[in-house]
């Protein structure tokens, strides 16, 4: 292959401009593939926020809304479910376990979640990992509180510290429950999920701080309850939950159970399948994804255009070379082949270097990103998406090569051997 040999030697001869071109294509390709990897990592970690939960049940309302407040600690629930309804469903033969959630309070901007020991036993995230305690024990008394890792770290709390709870979920609620402070019993290990940013108390604890609030307003001055007024754990009557997570005995029952819950006549309620709902939510964010991808594709195009410019401008200096090749018998088609081949080689080298760069950056940056952001970006061998991108880049290089090549073709056909400068 004389032409390939010529193309490679010619590129090597222009080492500086060649490496600049390859470098800029490599960077743009690395950006394209890197963004794709981060996107997949984000989607995976997003849909892994909870796992093994078959249904999330709450008062009737929006699917996404239910997901947001019970999984991501965002937005506020509109209605609660009665405790009796919850218990009725918890006893359902198709249901193996439940985790009840009582929401609506906060502590200095972090959500306070009332739950019970089932949370510590049953909650799973990212491929089935269970909640672990970094310090202390899982809170089980009325005024026990267990802190998510970020809460403890950001507020500087340790075991035994007192924690006040604010009614409502604003950052600074003005209706305080400070007369009934809680005590830190345990701190959870970091999960890189919204669990880290929540404060866990018992459902009884939630009831206790709302004694006297039954009408929705705080008790009159002097009528506030104090620790002494509050009954012992077993005497407190839980009246409501906001939502609950469900694990079924058999996954085949999930759809039927969901329908059954949605049709429940005792109270307006709904069940969502978290996997489906998470997907639906991700689709909603999909616009941003598409935008990001478009931007990176344009970056690659800019990189390739840089190559085009450098090949095109080099043509003038290379008219001599083309005339020599013509003189020794190269047809105009060989001239085209030479330039297209150079362009393809540049694009291919850029694509391969870009891919290599992604792996270098990934293996260096993966632990850092995981520790800092909690985003786990898996390192996998290049998949169909990567090959598709690389193929597209090389094809684009091939097509773009025709721009300088056709100019050289015309010159070769019409100029003869007199090279006028």
């Amino acid at each position, binding site marked *: 292959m004389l032409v390939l040999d010529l193309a490679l030697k010619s590129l090597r001869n*222009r080492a500086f401009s060649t490496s600049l071109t390859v470098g800029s294509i490599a960077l743009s390709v690395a950006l394209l593939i890197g963004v794709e990897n981060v996107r997949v990592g984000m989607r995976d970690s997003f849909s892994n926020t909870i796992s093994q939960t078959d249904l999330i049940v709450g008062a009737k309302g929006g699917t996404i809304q239910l997901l947001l407040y019970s999984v991501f600690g965002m937005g506020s629930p509109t209605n609660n479910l009665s405790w009796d309804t919850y218990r009725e469903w918890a006893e359902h033969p198709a249901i193996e376990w439940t985790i009840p959630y009582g929401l609506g309070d906060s502590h200095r901007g972090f959500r306070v979640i009332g739950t019970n020991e089932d949370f510590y036993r049953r909650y799973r995230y990212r491929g089935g990992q269970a909640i672990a305690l970094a310090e202390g024990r899982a809170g089980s008394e009325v005024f026990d509180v267990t802190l998510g890792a970020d809460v403890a770290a950001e507020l500087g709390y340790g075991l035994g510290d007192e924690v006040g709870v604010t009614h409502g979920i604003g950052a600074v609620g003005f209706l305080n429950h400070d007369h009934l402070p809680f005590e830190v019993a345990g701190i959870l290990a970091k999960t890189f999920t919204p669990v880290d940013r929540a404060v866990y108390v018992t459902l009884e604890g939630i009831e206790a701080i709302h004694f006297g609030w039954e009408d929705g307003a705080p008790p009159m001055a002097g009528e506030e309850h104090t620790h002494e007024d509050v009954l012992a754990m077993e005497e407190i009557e839980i009246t409501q939950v906001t939502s609950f997570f469900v694990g079924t005995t058999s996954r085949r029952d999930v759809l039927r159970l969901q329908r059954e819950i949605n049709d429940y006549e005792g109270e307006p309620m709904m069940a969502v399948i978290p996997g489906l709902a998470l997907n639906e939510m991700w689709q909603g964010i999909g616009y941003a994804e598409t935008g990001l991808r478009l931007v990176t594709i344009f970056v690659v195009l800019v990189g390739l255009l840089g190559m085009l410019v450098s090949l095109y401008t080099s043509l003038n200096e290379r008219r001599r070379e083309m005339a*020599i090749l013509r*003189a020794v018998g190269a*047809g105009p*088609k060989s001239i085209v082949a030479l330039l297209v081949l150079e362009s393809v080689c540049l694009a291919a080298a850029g694509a391969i270097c870009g891919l290599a760069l992604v792996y270098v950056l990934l293996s260096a940056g993966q632990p850092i990103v995981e520790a800092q952001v909690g985003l786990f970006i898996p390192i996998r061998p290049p998949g169909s998406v990567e090959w598709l991108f690389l193929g597209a880049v090389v094809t684009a290089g091939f097509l773009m090569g025709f721009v300088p090549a056709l100019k050289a073709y015309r010159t070769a056909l019409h100029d*003869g051997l*007199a090279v006028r400068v």
Partner: protein
Amino acid sequence: MSLAIDVRRLRFRYGNGPWVLDIPEMALERGTRAFLFGPSGSGKTTLLGVLAGVLKPDEGEVNVLGRDLASLSGAQRDAFRAEHIGYVFQMFNLIPYLSVLDNITLPVRMNAKRRARLDGAGVKETAALLADHLQIGDLLKKPVTELSVGQQQRVAACRALMGSPEIIVADEPTSSLDFDRREAFLELLFAECERAGATLVFVSHDRTLEGMFSRTVPLPDINRAAL
């Protein structure tokens, strides 16, 4: 004696420009060392382009080694040139990113028939032999950018002679050399053409060299398009 070149009623112009060549007749016998001269702009390079099959004549016949180039397609003319013609430019004859050896062997790598003309001799050996004859045997490994102009022209001559083509076309190859080197270069070129039995068409506007050739062709006299 058969004709190497036999041109009849040739007319050529670039695109729709004025006629550059209008040559009723021009014939060169095989083995001739022809000196083609004319002032600048008289169409010397253009005529060589037509003879080499790079440019397609608009009218007339251009018989080279018995083939009418005017009736061949572009690809056929390219193949013909690759096989039968060696070309030397005025200057900048060499491809800068190839070594001296690679520059010399370019024609036989480009065309299989030209390679077959080596008669079984190795490509490198032939190149080395030619380089020895032209007194550049010690330069084969050098990058071409390190050669003097005279050395470059001799490398170009080696390339043109590689694979013993029947016709060597040289477009003012000596104009950038001083007088002594000019004669030395020509003598080496003549010797090689003779050895290969090649016809030489040598273009120049420097008539001091005329005496060294067996035949002189004044282009303005035969070209009616000359202004």
